[in-house]
């Protein structure tokens, strides 16, 4: 039904409101018009320089590099920074809270910002597009290379925007006035500069990859981590915009578990079969999972009154949801589940890919995940000793990495001070996960060390089991209460 409203209006009605507003603001504001004008000037200057230098063979390559040199800062610095400014304004001014009272969910707010950034990106790209077409006509660069680089640039711009939104949503404190601006400028500036610096090498490599017929494989390999980071930053930003007393935890728990499973499927489907691939993936997963377990196991133990009303009614569904619901005890259960998925995935992958797992890599993966569980258990026990409330949670999240760092560094420092030198790895370094994993990955004589780590894990499991049990009991009780209502 037309409802007497013009077609463009009806189409806008279907768009994300944040997208519509951000575009209106950009069109009304000066910053966007200035950037567009500057981009047009750059394009004109580059075109004039190309015209003046004649049309030597291969001129297209250097012209393309020049074009991207001007386009990359716009895509990777200006577009994300605009998203940061807008988010920070909303959060520090309290408008973000007003938005939460509407039908918009935090995820929709972040999606709207990413879409608005993409609209800006496309406007800038359309300004540079004639020049890019010209570089192709001048030869020296082919269409797949252009598509490859622009595709990666688009993903990188989205990822940088998601990171900027996350920073904007996390830095609303009045105390942190200028620091986030400086931090973001340094990060985005450094990122843009490094991409600009690597442009020529990247173009050469892309040409090589295309000639070998591995375009999609390499594009997939490069885009997978960028997409994973994009999802992570977006989810982080949505969690920051979600009120502290709502459920911020479940999406991260689902994301981290799914990421481990998807990563194994991905290497099985995309990468050539390799003895090291499974252990390498398990090690990468252990390193990245640090941020997830640190937040999940240090949460308050109990469900909030509102979360209790959202526990699934069906008992089997409630039981399945236990590791994914907020709460430190349930965070421990989730960590164990991810650990099992990561180690189990290594064996399933090797079976499916028909490879024999490299033994040193296998031991290193086991060691890494035992460390994950030891430190996660310690963090849970520490959180249990601290007072309830946001302060205790924050303290546990700061203290845990500090403890890991001290346990890793202090033995080496003492040794250096006492003996004026650092000997090789010895038992005193057992709580240094980085060095121990590296040593285990090289040698096969670390059986006793692994036994000590396994025993420590079992001991800590005894101490953390009550918290996990309480986590299960609470969910069952909440589910029963919902059924009874």
């Amino acid at each position, binding site marked *: 039904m037309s*409802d007497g*409203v013009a077609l463009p209006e009806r189409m806008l009605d279907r768009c994300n409101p944040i997208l519509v*507003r951000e575009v209106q603001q950009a069109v009304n504001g000066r910053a966007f018009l200035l950037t567009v004008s500057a981009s047009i000037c750059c394009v004109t200057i580059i075109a004039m320089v190309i015209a003046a230098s004649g049309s030597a063979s291969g001129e297209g390559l250097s012209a393309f590099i020049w074009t991207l040199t001007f386009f990359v800062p716009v895509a990777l610095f200006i577009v994300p920074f605009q998203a940061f400014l807008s988010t920070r304004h909303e959060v520090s001014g309290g408008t973000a*809270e007003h938005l*939460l009272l*509407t*039908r918009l969910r935090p995820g929709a707010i972040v999606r709207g910002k990413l879409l608005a950034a993409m609209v800006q990106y496309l406007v800038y790209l359309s300004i540079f597009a004639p020049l890019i077409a010209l570089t192709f006509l001048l030869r020296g660069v082919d269409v797949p290379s252009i598509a490859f680089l622009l595709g990666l640039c688009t993903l990188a711009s989205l990822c940088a925007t998601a990171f900027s939104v996350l920073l904007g949503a996390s830095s609303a404190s009045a105390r942190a006035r200028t620091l986030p601006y400086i931090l973001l400028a340094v990060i985005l500036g450094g990122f843009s500069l490094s991409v600009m610096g690597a442009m020529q090498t990247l173009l050469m490599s892309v040409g090589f990859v295309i000639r070998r017929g591995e375009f999609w494989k390499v594009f997939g390999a490069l885009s997978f981590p960028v997409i994973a980071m994009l999802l992570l930053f977006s989810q982080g930003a949505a969690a920051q915009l979600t009120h502290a007393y709502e459920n911020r935890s479940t999406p991260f728990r689902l994301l981290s578990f799914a990421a481990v499973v998807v990563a194994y499927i991905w290497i099985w489907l995309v990468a050539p079969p390799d003895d090291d691939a499974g252990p390498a993936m398990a090690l990468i997963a252990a390193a990245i999972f640090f941020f997830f377990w640190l937040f999940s196991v240090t949460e308050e133990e109990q469900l909030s009154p509102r979360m209790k009303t959202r526990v699934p009614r069906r008992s089997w569904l409630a039981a399945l949801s236990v590791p994914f619901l907020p709460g430190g005890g349930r965070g421990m259960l989730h960590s164990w589940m991810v650990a099992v998925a990561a180690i189990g995935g290594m064996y399933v992958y090797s079976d499916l890919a028909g490879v024999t797992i490299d033994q040193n890599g296998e031991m290193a993966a086991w060691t890494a995940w035992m460390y994950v569980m030891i430190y996660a258990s310690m963090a849970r026990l520490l959180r249990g000793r601290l007072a309830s409330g946001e302060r205790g949670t924050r303290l546990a999240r700061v203290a845990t990495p500090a403890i890991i760092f001290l346990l890793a560094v202090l033995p080496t420092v003492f040794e250096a001070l006492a003996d004026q030198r650092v000997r090789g790895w010895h038992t005193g370094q057992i709580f240094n996960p980085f060095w121990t994993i590296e040593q285990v990955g090289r040698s096969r004589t670390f059986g006793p060390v692994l036994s000590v780590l396994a025993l420590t894990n079992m001991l800590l499991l005894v101490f953390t089991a009550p918290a996990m049990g309480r986590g299960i009991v609470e969910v069952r009780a909440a589910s029963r209460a919902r059924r009874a209502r």
Partner: protein
Amino acid sequence: MSSALLEVRGLCRSYGSLRAVDDLSFAFEKGQVYGFIGPNGAGKTTTMRMLATLDLPDGGDAFVDGLSILVEPRKVRMQVGFMADRFVPYPNLDVVEFLDFFARAYGLRGRERIRTIESVCSFCGLDDFRNRPSTGLSKGMAQRLHLAKTLLHDPSLLILDEPAAGLDPHARIDLRHLLGELAAAGKGILISSHILSELSESCDGVVVIERGRRVVSGALDEIAKEVREHHAVRVRLLGEPDEAERFFLTQPHVQDIQSVDHTIEFDFTGDEEEMAALLQRAIGAGLRVVEFRQREADLEDIFMRTTKGKLQ
């Protein structure tokens, strides 16, 4: 099932060891304006944020038109219009664009959205300011824009946190009229303010809280009766006030005499018969009485008598 528009039942909220809201209960119906008053730090904003579903109670619950803020926050949000004490509009948007954005965010589409924006603009007196930048409005107009934004989704309950703060007398009077019209349209309004004279003119009832606990709540006239055990009497005279003061000092049931120019105020502990007799004696004694009236307890009296001004 209760017919109350807002029913608060034993609401509690703690921040660490601080009990910001402690077992708070009250209720009111559609079309009523309720003042929510208390000293600074009494827990007013925390309560209002919980009612708007922006914060979570540790205990208790509240129901907006029968919907629990705990169980059905999304439905409650569609029933509640929350006007926070802080309002920062978007830069590079004019008044209509600002309202258009929030109308879209509330899910209004097409002709309905356009109609709603026109109607709230007109109701809040923003017609002449439609194309003004939303960041370039005076405090009074910004509050009107804030109110307009709050009304976009036609909420049945309005929660207004200090809406009159920083407004000049004209803007306050305008706001009072707007609230009166909204109440007449059947909306319930919970409003907090430190400007008690403003509240007393626009409120049907009041909830007074201190240190997170309800001190008193109910219809204004009923509370006024409860709060004042004595009659406050005000007498205006012609002639010498000293002589009149001496006279009243000797009269039974009269205490706490205060005299300013030609006006004498005192507390009278007797009943209405005895008050009539006192007036007769005063005239008989030759006092030239111009006015003799019993003063009603106002919101300021209620507030001062029920709270101790303790902070937490």
